[in-house]
C-alpha cells in the first residue's frame, strides 16, 4: 500500500502533468505543425512545365501556382487551427485529470460513505 500511495500521489500524479507535453508533441507531429508553419504561403502541390513548353503553358502554370498558394494557405491554416483546437482540448483534459487523479483512490471509500449517507 505504501508503494502504491507513494506512486499515486508522487510520480503518478506528476506523470499526468508531464503527459501534456507528450500529447501536444504528438499532435504537433501528426498535424506537421512545424512544416505547415514554415510553408504556410507555399503553393499547394506545385505545377510545373516540362522542357519545350509554350509561353502560354508557362503562363498558365504561373497563374495556377498563384491560385495554388491561396488554396495551400487555406488548407494549412485549417489544419493548424485543428491542431490548436486539439491542443486546447488536451490541455482541458489534462487539467481535469490532474484534479480528479488524487480523488480516485479516495472515491473508493467516498462512494461507500456517500451511498450510506444518501
Amino acid at each position, binding site marked *: 500500500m505504501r508503494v502504491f500511495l*507513494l506512486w499515486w500521489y508522487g510520480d*503518478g500524479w506528476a506523470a499526468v502533468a508531464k503527459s501534456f507535453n507528450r500529447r501536444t508533441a504528438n499532435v504537433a507531429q501528426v498535424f506537421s505543425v512545424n*512544416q505547415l508553419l514554415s510553408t504556410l504561403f507555399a503553393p499547394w502541390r*506545385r505545377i510545373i512545365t516540362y*522542357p519545350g513548353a509554350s509561353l502560354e503553358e508557362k503562363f498558365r502554370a504561373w497563374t495556377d501556382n498563384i491560385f495554388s498558394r491561396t488554396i495551400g494557405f487555406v488548407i*494549412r491554416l485549417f*489544419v493548424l487551427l485543428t491542431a490548436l483546437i486539439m491542443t486546447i482540448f488536451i490541455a482541458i483534459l489534462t487539467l481535469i485529470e490532474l484534479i480528479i487523479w488524487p480523488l480516485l483512490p479516495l472515491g*473508493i471509500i467516498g*462512494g461507500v460513505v456517500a451511498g450510506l449517507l444518501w
Partner: protein
Amino acid sequence: MVGLLDLASDRAYTARLAKRLSRQSYLASLSLGFIALAGAVIVAVNGHTRYSFFFISLALLFLVPAIWWKRYLNVLPIKGNGLTERLSAEVLANIDPKKELTPQVLWASLEKSWQTGFIYHHLLLSSEVVSLCIEHLDKSTIKSALDIAAVIADGVGSKLIEPGFVAAGLMLNSKDLGALLLEQKSKLEDIKTVSVWLGRNLVEFGDREKQKFGGIGRDWAFGYTPLLNKFGLNLSQSIMKDQIHFGWLTASRGVLAIEAALENHSRALAVIGQVGVGKTSNVYALAQRLIEGKTSGDLAFHELVMINATDIVSNVRRPGDIEYIMISLANEAAHAGHIILFLDDAEAFLTEGTGSFDGAKILQSIIGAGSVPIILALTPNGFQTIKARNPALASQITPIVLNEFSETDTLHVLEDTAVGLENKNKVLIAYEALTASYSLSGRYSSDEAYPGKAISLLSRSIPYSQGSVITRASIEAAVEDMYGVKVGSAHPAEAEELLNLEDRIHQQMINQDQAVSVVANALRRARAGVTNPHRPVGSFLFLGPTGVGKTELAKALASTYFKSVDNMIRLDMSEYQNPSDLNRLLSDGTNETKSLILSVRQKPFSVVLLDEIEKAHPSILNLLLQILDEGSLSDSQGRSVSFKDCVIIATSNAGAQSIRKRIEFNENINDFHDELIEELIKHNDFKPELINRFDEVVIFRPLQPDELARVVMLMLKEVNQTLSQQNITVSLTEAAINKIVEKGYDPTFGARPMRRVLQKAVEDTIAKKILSGEIKPGTNTNLDASDLTI
C-alpha cells in the same frame, strides 16, 4: 539486503508484485471496473442514486489498481543509477528474497528468459550444459557478473540492465564454459560479443517503435512527381511502406558525410567505393534519416528517388527521348522541391551509355543547371574514368569516398543481416557462422569489398543449414561448393586419403620417394591447419634432369588430392622471357585467356606448375616472390587473387648435369643437396631470395633401369584403360618391356620418349591386329618383343 542487490527494496518488491498481478489480472480488473461503472449509470438512470455510489466505489476499486498496473507496475521505470534500480524487473521478480543470493539462484532467475536463450543458442550451447557450468561458480562471482552486465548495458546505450546481460556476466565468469567454447573453436569473449549483439537489437527495436515520418502535412508544400513515380524508385516511400530500418548505419561516417555535403549545397555528389562497400545502403540510410526528419531544417523530409537508367532506355522509342526524359525528371524533381535524385551504378550510364546516347553530356547539363541535388554511386575506377574523359564534369562533383568496413563494423552488419535471415528462413545463425563468413569471404571473394562479400556468403549458406542451424561448417560447405576449395576440417575419408597420399601418388609415378614424401607432408600440414594460412599450401622447386618425373608428380598430385588433372595450371616459363610478358600473366582475362590470374581465379584450388622456371625474365621471378610471400597477386585492374589454396611447383633442369654425375658416383641426394643449391646460386641460376622462399627444394634423381620397366607398366595401364572400352587387354612379356625401355630411354631426355615409343610399339601393333581381325573384343593379348613394331 544481499550485497549488491537490495531484494527488500521497493523496486524489488514491486517487481515481484507485478509478476503476481499478471496482464490477465489487469484485463480482468479493467473489465470489471467498466462493468461496475456501467452499472452505476444504469442504476442512477433508474433513480437509485444511493446504489449508484456503491457501484462507483466498486468501479474505482477495480479501475485504480488497473491504472497502477498499466502505468507503473508494467513498466517499472528506472529511478537512479544503482544496480537494483537499473536491473530488469524480470530478473528482480524471479529471485526468491528468502534464499541466499548465489550465482545458481541468480541463474535460475534468468534461465528461462528468451534473452538468455538468444546467447547460448547463438553460441551453440544448451541450457543444461550452461547450467552445469554455472553450478561450479562461487558466490564471489556475482559482483563481477553484475558489473559486466552494467558495462554491457552502458556499451549499447541501455539504461536498463537486461536479463541477457546478467546471464552473459555469469557465463563470462565460468572457466568451464571457457574451456568448452575453446573446444568448439570459439572464445569466452564471444559471450560478450553475442550479448552486445542482443543489446543492440533491443535498443534498435525500441528506436523502431519510436519511428515517425512527419505527419499528414509533410508533403503538402512539395510538387507532384508523376514522371519520377514512373521511372524512379522512391527509397523514402519504400522505407515508410516496408518499415525498413538501417539502425546504426544512419549515423555512420559515410551517411553523415553525404548529409553534410548536401547541407553545404553540393548539387552533385559521388559516393565512391568498391562493389560491396555499401554505397546503395548508405544512400538508403540517408533516406531514412531525412524522412524521419533527423536532420537540419533544410533537408528534413526530403525524399530520395533512385533513377534506373536501364528502365528509361527500355521505355523509349528513340535515343533522343532519353535526354528529354532525364532532363524532365530533373526538372520535375527541382520543382517538387523535396527530391534528391540517386543514380545507382552511374558508371554504366556515364562511361558507356546504355545505348546510343551520351550519358555524361546529359548529366553535365543537369548538374550545370544546379537545380536538383543528385547523388551518383561510382567505383573508384569509374570516377577515375570520368575524370580522365570529362574533367569538366568531374570538377563539378563532390567525391565522398566510402572505405571498406573494418572487421568490427562488418560483424555488426552481419549481426543485423543474420536477424533478418533468421526471421525470413526460420533458421538459427550461430555466431561462429558470422565470423566464418567474414574470414572466408575475405579469403576467397576478391571481387567484392566488405561488408558486401560477407553478407553474400552468409546469405548463400542458408541452404547448407544443418537441422535449421547455420554453423561454421555450413559456411565452409558453401565456400567449398562456390569456389571448389577445401576449407573445413578433413572428414574421416579425406584424412585417410591424406595419410596414405604417398601410396596413392605412387600408383601414378615410380619412385622419387623423397619428392613424393615432401609434397605429401606439405598437404597434410595444410589440411591439419598447422601452416601459415596467408601463404600457398605448399611451394616447391623441383630440380633434376628431364624425364625423371617432375611434371608427373605435379600431375599425380592434381589427379589424387586435387581430384582431377584439370586442376593443374601449367605455364611454360620459357614463354615469359621478356618484361612485356608480365602483362600476359597479370591480365584480368579480358585480352589474355591464358593469364595466370584468370586461371587461379577460376580454379583457386589447384596445382600451379611453372615449368622451366629458370628461363623466365627476372621481373617475372619477382612476381613469384610476391606469390610465395603473401599468397596473393593483383591483376592489371588492381583486384587481388588468392594463391593460398594452391600448391606452387616450379621445375628446373638447372644443375641436371651435376645431379647426374653425382648419382653416377653413387652420391646420396641428401648429401649433396645443400652443395648443389649453393652451386646454383653461385652460377646465377637462381637468386638466393627466390630459393629461400620455397618450402622445399627437391632433387629428382635419374631413373634406374628397373624403375624404367615399372614406368612402362604404368603407361601400359593407361593404354589398357583406353582399350577397355573395346573389352581388350594387352600385356607385355619381359623381353617386350626391355625392348621398350631400351628404345624409350634417352640419357638426355630420361623417360620422356618412353610414352612415344610405347604408343608406336603397342598401340600401332594392336591397331593393326584389331583391323586385321586377329584381336577380337573380350580377348587378352600378350605381346612379345618380336610383335612390337619399333
